[in-house]
């Protein structure tokens, strides 16, 4: 953390905190994409079946929800003024975590 009182100094945050946070959301979206692709591969392994296709569709929906949360947060970060962006809303944090949990639940169904 850089020295105190910098946030009032000007438009540009020398620690680039919003940019770093935006990139952290990008990295997390990328990890989510990899996990969703592996889930899709598992679901459609051995030819398309009714269960496989529906689980694959659920995984796609989860990935899209995560993308929507990340996109919303990145928009909020980029529209921030000198006072800094507002903190992350708890329901978005919960939504991102619940997408991850739901992906793992899909995985459990597929593995068993």
């Amino acid at each position, binding site marked *: *953390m850089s020295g105190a009182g910098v*946030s009032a100094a000007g438009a540009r*945050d020398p*620690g680039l*905190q*919003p940019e*770093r*946070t935006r990139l*952290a*959301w990008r*990295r*997390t979206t990328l*990890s*989510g994409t*990899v*996990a969703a692709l*592996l*889930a899709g*591969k*598992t679901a459609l*392994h051995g030819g398309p079946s009714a269960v496989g296709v529906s689980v694959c569709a659920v995984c796609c929906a989860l990935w899209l929800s995560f993308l929507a949360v990340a996109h919303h947060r990145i928009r909020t970060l980029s529209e921030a003024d000198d*006072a*800094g*962006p*507002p*903190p*992350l*809303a*708890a*329901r978005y*944090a*919960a939504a*991102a*975590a619940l997408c*991850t*949990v739901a*992906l*793992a*639940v899909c*995985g*459990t169904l*597929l*593995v*068993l």
Partner: protein
Amino acid sequence: MIDFARNVRLWFAPQEIGEEGRTPDYRFSLANERTFLAWLRTALALIGGGFAVDQFLPDLRWAWRVGLALALLAAGVLCSLRAVNHWVRCERAMRRGEDLPVSRFPALLSLAVAVVAVAMVVVVLARGNG
């Protein structure tokens, strides 16, 4: 566990966090958010590892394959739930001006990952001999 249930309520009622204490410097909130995202990536990596064990080790005996995959998936679930819970606790502690919460979760997670890694080594060696 009672703390956890109370925190779960806070996940969906952000205005209750907003009413407590003072808003901290936005840089601290963003740092807390990045830590949350890093834990979420760890969870996603564990889940991806679970899928990978299931997909890329087809010669493994069914019990071992499913056991390892389920262990990794369960670790991923715990990790993401803990990520959002710890984020809420840190956010609230910063608003109240308290010390940040301490946690033994990182130690437990690294022990679990070490156990899974040892299990993988045993499985690979057993396959080499058999």
